[in-house]
């Protein structure tokens, strides 16, 4: 019986150690994931936040296009892992919009013409390496610049964000999911999401 108990205790210790190792490894990897990209980039984030707060914008379509696509830029400053999900707009098309890009950074949004004025929010992006925490500010800037409308797939995170910022669904119905226009990979990742049309409550 004693031998049996000793064996059982040894087994428990081994399992515990193994479990601890896995836990430590998991925590370390998670921490690396959180810190790796943003190490030492606090000043860049602050710089971006200051420019957005001050309303300093680069309006050049070529610069905006490069910010969206990362074309011609080093990966150290601009990362675009999914070019197929980046932008359907050409420089010419962007030139017909009101553009808002943070100077010298790959961050911005555009207002597209709708019913005679620039009020549809599109291409909200942050491709700047190491900069985070600017999403809500960008959306607030878009609203204060006249942005009233936006459409999006009904994905939980986005629906929550837009609702919390005062964008309400309008119109009688959503655009039902249509699998012929999206990839299988898209459906697996985001599900069969309808498209929601929203208007800001102050518009």
């Amino acid at each position, binding site marked *: 019986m004693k031998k049996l108990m000793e064996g059982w205790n040894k087994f428990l210790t081994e399992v515990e150690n193994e479990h601890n190792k896995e836990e430590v490894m998991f925590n370390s990897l998670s*921490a690396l*994931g*959180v*810190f790796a*990209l*943003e190490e030492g980039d606090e000043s860049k*984030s602050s710089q971006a936040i200051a420019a957005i707060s001050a309303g300093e914008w680069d309006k050049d379509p070529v610069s905006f296009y490069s910010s*969206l696509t990362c074309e011609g830029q080093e990966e150290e400053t601009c990362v675009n892992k*999914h070019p197929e*999900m*980046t*932008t*359907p*707009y050409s420089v010419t098309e962007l030139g017909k919009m009101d553009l808002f890009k943070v100077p010298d950074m790959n961050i911005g949004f555009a207002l597209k013409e*709708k019913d005679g004025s620039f009020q*549809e929010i*599109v*291409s*909200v*992006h*942050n*491709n700047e390496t190491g*900069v*985070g*925490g*600017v*999403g*809500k500010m*960008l959306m607030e800037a878009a609203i204060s610049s006249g942005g009233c*409308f936006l*459409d*999006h*797939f009904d*994905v939980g*995170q*986005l629906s929550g*964000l837009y609702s919390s910022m005062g964008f309400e669904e309008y119109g009688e119905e959503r*655009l039902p999911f*249509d699998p012929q*226009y*999206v990839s299988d990979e*898209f459906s697996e990742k*985001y599900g069969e999401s309808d*498209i929601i*049309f929203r208007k800001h409550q102050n518009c």
Partner: protein
Amino acid sequence: MPIGKDETKEQYYKRMVADLGMMMKLVEKDEKKEKKNEATPRKVE
């Protein structure tokens, strides 16, 4: 229907997929930043 006048349904979907990709990236970066802020101890004055 918010599909633009000179836009087909296919083009509209392409635009929506692109906007989704960009917004999700932006939201994920913000969440990452938030986690980092939570994990970083604040300086005591």
